[in-house]
C-alpha cells in the first residue's frame, strides 16, 4: 500500500523521500491509530471538533482551525527550521558544531532522555480519557481535545527522532511507547505522576497548569541540546505547550471567578450551597498538583543530570540568554539539605544540581501564576491569596521525600503532618464534593455552575460557538 505521506502527515522533514522513516511509520502509524482508538478520549471519535492543526512551521501554517474528527487529525512532524552553523551551547563540547547525527557514545543517554520525555505525551492522553463525559462546556471540551491531539503530536515528534536516528532500538522503543499504559499495574508509564488518573476538571486544569509547565521546562532544557534535531523538535513543541498552560491557568481562574461571584452574591454563606468550589479547596488542588509536578524534576543532587549537562545533551532553560558561563564547572549551587532532622545549606557542584536549577525556574514561573489568581480575588475585594507550596511540601522523590513539611516548607513531625494534611491536600470529602459537581454541559453557550465562561472564545469565535458538534 502506498501512502501519500505529505498529505496524510504534514511535515517539514522531507518525509516523502525518506525511505527509512517511511518504513518505520508504515508499521507504527496503524499501531498509533489503534492506540488512539483504545486509549484516546472515549466516545468522541466520531464527533466534529473545532481544532487547530499545524500544517507548516511558518506564521500562517502552524495554527489552522477547522472541524475535524479526531482520528482523522493530521498529526504532523515539525522541527523549527535549522539555525546556520549552530554550536553546542554548554557542557564539555561547548563551541563545537552541534550534532546532526547521534554521537555514538551518547546514543544510549539520548535515547533514554527522548523515551522518558516521549512517554509522558501518550500518558497524559490516557490520564484524561474519561473527562469528556463531564465537560463543563463545549468550549472546555474542545480545549481538552486540542490538548489531547497535541500531546499525540508531541509523541509523533519524539517518535520521529527515535525512528530517524536510533535504528532498530529506536523502532522498538517507539512501539513500547504505545504498549505502556497510564495506571496499568503491569505496564505503567515511566514516571509515577503520569500514572495517576485525572478524575475531575479542576484536576485537569491543575494538570495543564503544573504538569504541562514541567513539560515546558523539560522542553526548554532539551531545546538547548547539542543534538540539533532534538533541539529543533522541542522548540516547535514549546509553541503548542503554551496553549495547554493557557487552558489550565484560565480554567482555574474561571473557577475562582465563579466562586468569587457566588461569595459576592451571598455574603457570609457557604458557597457549596450554590455549587461553587470554595477558594480553600481550590488551593488544596493547587497544592496537590504543584507538589507532584515538582517531583518530575528528579533528585536534587543527581549524577545523571551532571552527565547529561556535561555531554551537551540537556542544558538549562534559556541557557544562552540567561547565563554567562556555560561550562558550569567550578561553580556551586546552594541546596537546603535535609538530613532527617534539620535543613542545612550546602553548596553542591553546579552540574550535579541541574535538576534543582530547572526546578527553581519552574517554581518561580508557577509563583507568578499564583499572583494572577490572587488578582482575581482582589478584583472582588476578597482577601484571599493563592500560593504555590514550597518545593519541600508533599514530595515523593528526592531528599525531602523522607521528611514532612508544611506548604511553607517548614519541617514538622509525622503526627503533625497526619493531623494537618487535610488542611493542605484534598480530603475524600473534598474529592466527593468536586466529583459531584462534574456533570456534563454539552450545549453551545452553556457553562456548568461551578465555572465562569471565558472572556473570549477560540480563534475569535464567540463563547457560545459550537466547538464540538454533538
Amino acid at each position, binding site marked *: 500500500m502506498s501512502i501519500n505521506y505529505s498529505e496524510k502527515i504534514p511535515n517539514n522533514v522531507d518525509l516523502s523521500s525518506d525511505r527509512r522513516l517511511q518504513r518505520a511509520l508504515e508499521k507504527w502509524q496503524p499501531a498509533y491509530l489503534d492506540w488512539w482508538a483504545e486509549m484516546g478520549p472515549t466516545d468522541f471519535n466520531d464527533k466534529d471538533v473545532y481544532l487547530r492543526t499545524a500544517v507548516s512551521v511558518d506564521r500562517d501554517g502552524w495554527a489552522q482551525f477547522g472541524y475535524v474528527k479526531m482520528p482523522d487529525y493530521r498529526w504532523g512532524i515539525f522541527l523549527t527550521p535549522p539555525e546556520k552553523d549552530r554550536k553546542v551551547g554548554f557542557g564539555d563540547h561547548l563551541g563545537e558544531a552541534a550534532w546532526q547525527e547521534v554521537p555514538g557514545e551518547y546514543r544510549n*543517554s539520548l535515547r533514554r532522555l527522548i523515551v522518558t520525555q516521549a512517554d509522558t505525551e501518550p500518558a497524559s492522553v490516557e490520564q484524561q480519557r474519561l473527562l469528556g463525559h463531564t465537560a463543563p462546556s463545549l468550549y472546555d471540551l474542545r480545549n481538552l481535545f486540542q490538548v489531547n491531539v497535541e500531546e499525540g503530536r508531541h509523541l509523533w515528534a519524539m517518535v520521529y527522532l527515535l525512528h530517524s536516528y536510533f535504528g532498530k532500538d529506536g523502532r522498538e522503543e517507539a512501539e513500547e511507547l504505545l504498549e*505502556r499504559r497510564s495506571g496499568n499495574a*503491569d505496564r*505503567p508509564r515511566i514516571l509515577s505522576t503520569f500514572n495517576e488518573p485525572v478524575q475531575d476538571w479542576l484536576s485537569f486544569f491543575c494538570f495543564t497548569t503544573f504538569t504541562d509547565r514541567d513539560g515546558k521546562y523539560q522542553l526548554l532544557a532539551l531545546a538547548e541540546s547539542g543534538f540539533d534535531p532534538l533541539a529543533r523538535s522541542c522548540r516547535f513543541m514549546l509553541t503548542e505547550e503554551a496553549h495547554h498552560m493557557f487552558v489550565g491557568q484560565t480554567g482555574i481562574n474561571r473557577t475562582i471567578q465563579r466562586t468569587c461571584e457566588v461569595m459576592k452574591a451571598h455574603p457570609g454563606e457557604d458557597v457549596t450551597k450554590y455549587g461553587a468550589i470554595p477558594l480553600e479547596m481550590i488551593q488544596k488542588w493547587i497544592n496537590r498538583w504543584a507538589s507532584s509536578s515538582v517531583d518530575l524534576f528528579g533528585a536534587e543532587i543527581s549524577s545523571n543530570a551532571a552527565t547529561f549537562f556535561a555531554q551537551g545533551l540537556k542544558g538549562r532553560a534559556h541557557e544562552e540568554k540567561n547565563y554567562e558561563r556555560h561550562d558550569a*564547572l567550578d561553580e556551586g549551587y546552594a541546596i537546603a539539605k535535609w538530613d532527617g532532622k534539620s535543613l542545612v545549606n550546602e553548596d553542591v557542584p553546579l552540574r550535579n544540581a541541574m535538576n534543582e536549577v530547572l526546578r527553581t525556574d519552574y517554581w518561580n514561573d508557577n509563583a507568578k501564576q499564583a499572583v494572577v489568581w490572587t488578582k482575581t480575588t482582589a478584583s472582588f475585594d476578597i482577601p484571599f491569596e493563592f500560593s504555590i507550596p514550597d518545593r519541600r511540601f508533599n514530595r515523593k522523590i528526592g531528599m525531602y521525600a523522607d521528611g514532612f513539611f508544611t506548604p511553607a516548607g517548614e519541617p514538622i513531625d509525622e503526627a503533625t503532618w497526619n493531623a494537618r494534611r487535610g488542611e493542605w491536600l484534598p480530603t475524600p470529602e473534598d474529592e466527593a464534593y468536586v466529583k459531584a459537581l462534574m456533570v456534563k454541559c454539552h450545549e453551545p453557550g452553556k457553562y456548568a455552575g461551578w465555572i465562569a465562561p471565558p472572556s473570549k472564545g477560540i480563534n475569535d469565535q464567540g463563547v457560545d460557538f459550537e466547538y464540538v458538534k454533538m
Partner: protein
Amino acid sequence: MAEAINFETEPSKYKHWKLEIEGERARLIMQVKEDQGLRSDYILKLNSYDLGVDIELADAVRRIRYEHPQVKVVVLGGAMDRIFCAGANIMMLRSSTHAFKVNFCKFTNETRLYIEDASENSNIKFLCALNGTASGGGYELAMAADRILLVDDRSSAVSFPETPLLGVLPGTGGLTRLVDKRKVRRDRADVFSTIAEGIKGKRAVEWNLVDDLASLSAFEEKVDEIVGEMAAGLPDKADRKGVALKPILPTIDDRTFRYQYVTMTLGEDRSAEVVLTVPAAPVQPKSGAEAQAAGSDWWVFKAFRELDDCLLRLRLNHDQVGLVLLKTRGAVADILATDATLEALKDDWFVNEVRHHLKRVLKRLDLTAKSLFAIADEGSCFAGTLLEILLAADRSYILNDPDFPVALGVSTMNGGAYPMPNGLSRLQTRFLGEPERVGQVLEALGEFDAERADELGLATSAPDEIDWEDELRVAIEERVSFSPDALTGMEANLRFAGPETMETKIFGRLSAWQNWIFQRPNAVGERGALTCYGTPNRPEFNFQRT
C-alpha cells in the same frame, strides 16, 4: 586504622535483609538502609550494597542451610519499587583503598559461590525474583541463583553498566557467569555489557539473560509457580530440625584473638600466627541426631567457623599482614577419629553441611592473598582434615628430628571431600606431575612421622631441631621483605595448577583484570571514569591499548 569490621551477625540484627521462612520456602528480601553503611561517607541509594550488606546475605544463606534445613527453595527479592538492586555502591568503591576493594569483591564472590554451593550440595534451589531493574552487582547476584524471573513492565531491565559508565568491569564474576554459566552468546554478551541501561523483556529471555518474565500483577503467582517447579523432585526435608548457630566472637587482647579452638596473634613483622587446637579425646557423635544435638558446639565445626572468622579479619582488618603461619596442636588420633565420624555420618544432612562448611573455609584459605606457611612443629597434628591446611599453604615446614617427634596423618577425607576451587583435591593439585603419589599418600592411611611425611612429598623443608629455628627465621624474614604485589600474583598463579573452573576463572580474572583496571588512570586517575562518576567532570581516557 578504620574501625574493625565484625563478621558475626544474625537475622534479628540485619539492617538490610529480611529473612522469612514459610515451610519449605524461604524469602530473602533486600531492603538496604541508605544511611546504615559500614562507613558514613556514602549513602546506599537504590538498594546498592557495601560489605555490610553482603555479610548479612552470607549469614542469611548460612542460617538457611543450618537453622532451616526444611527449606527447598529460596526466593531472593527486593523491597523497593521498580528497582531490585543497583549493585555495589560506587561512592563506597571510590572512597575505599585498593586493598579493601579487592577484598570486598572477593568476599562478594565467595558469597555468590556459597549460594551456588548450597544449590549443588544441599538441594536448596534459588530463584531470583527481580521485581525491578538489577544492574551491575545486582544482576551478578541474580546470576548466582538457579533461575531468574524478571518483571515485564516495559521498563525493568538487567544490566552491566560498569564498562560504559564507570570504565571498569563487573567484579563479582559477572562476565564469567554470563558466558560460562548462562552460556550467553559472546557477541550478545558483548552488546549487553556495553549498554548502560541494559536489556529488558523478551529480548532478555531470548538472550538467556533471565529465564522467565511475568507482569507485575501476575508476578507473585509466577513466583509461586516456579517455586513449585523447583521444589518438585527435591528430597523430602520436612522432618529436619534446625541447628542453631551460636555466635563466634573472639576475646581480643591487644594483638591476640582468642577463640575456643583457634588463637590468632599478630606479629610485629607483618606476620600473623594462627593456631588451631584439637581438644583431647573429643566426644564423637554416634549418629546424625547426636551430631545435630552437638550442633554449633561440635568442636570441628566450631573450630573451622573460628578459623573462617580469623581469615576474614586478616583480609579486611589487617591488610599489613603479609604472611600467616599456620599451626595445629593436639593428637593425630583425635582428629582422625573426628574424620572417621565425618565420613561415617555423611548421609546425615547436618554432617553433610558441616563437611561443606569445612570445604568452604579451606577454599577461603586457598583464596587468601597472604603468604601461607604451615609450621608442623612439636605438638602439631596435621592429619586428615587438618592436613588440608598444610596442603593449602604455599610452603610447609616439618620438624624432622627423632628427639622431637612430630606426627602427621592421612584420612579418607584427603581423597576428595575438600576440593579446591579448581575442582581437584589438594593432593591431586600438589602432585599434578606425579599423580601416582596421590595414591601413595592416601594409602598411608593413619598416623605417620615427619620422616615419612617428607618421603611422601608433604614437606617443603624438613630440618632437624638444630637447623629448625634459623631456617624458619630466614624464611619468614625473606618472605615479608618481598613486594606484596608480586607475592600475591605469584601465589595465585602457583596455587591453582590444573584445570580451570568457573570458580578459578572468577577469582583469577578478578585478580588479573578487574584489579588491574581498578588501578589504572582510566578508572581511578584524576579524570578516570570511576573518579568522575557522579561529579561534574567527564572522564578523559588515554586511548593507548596494552
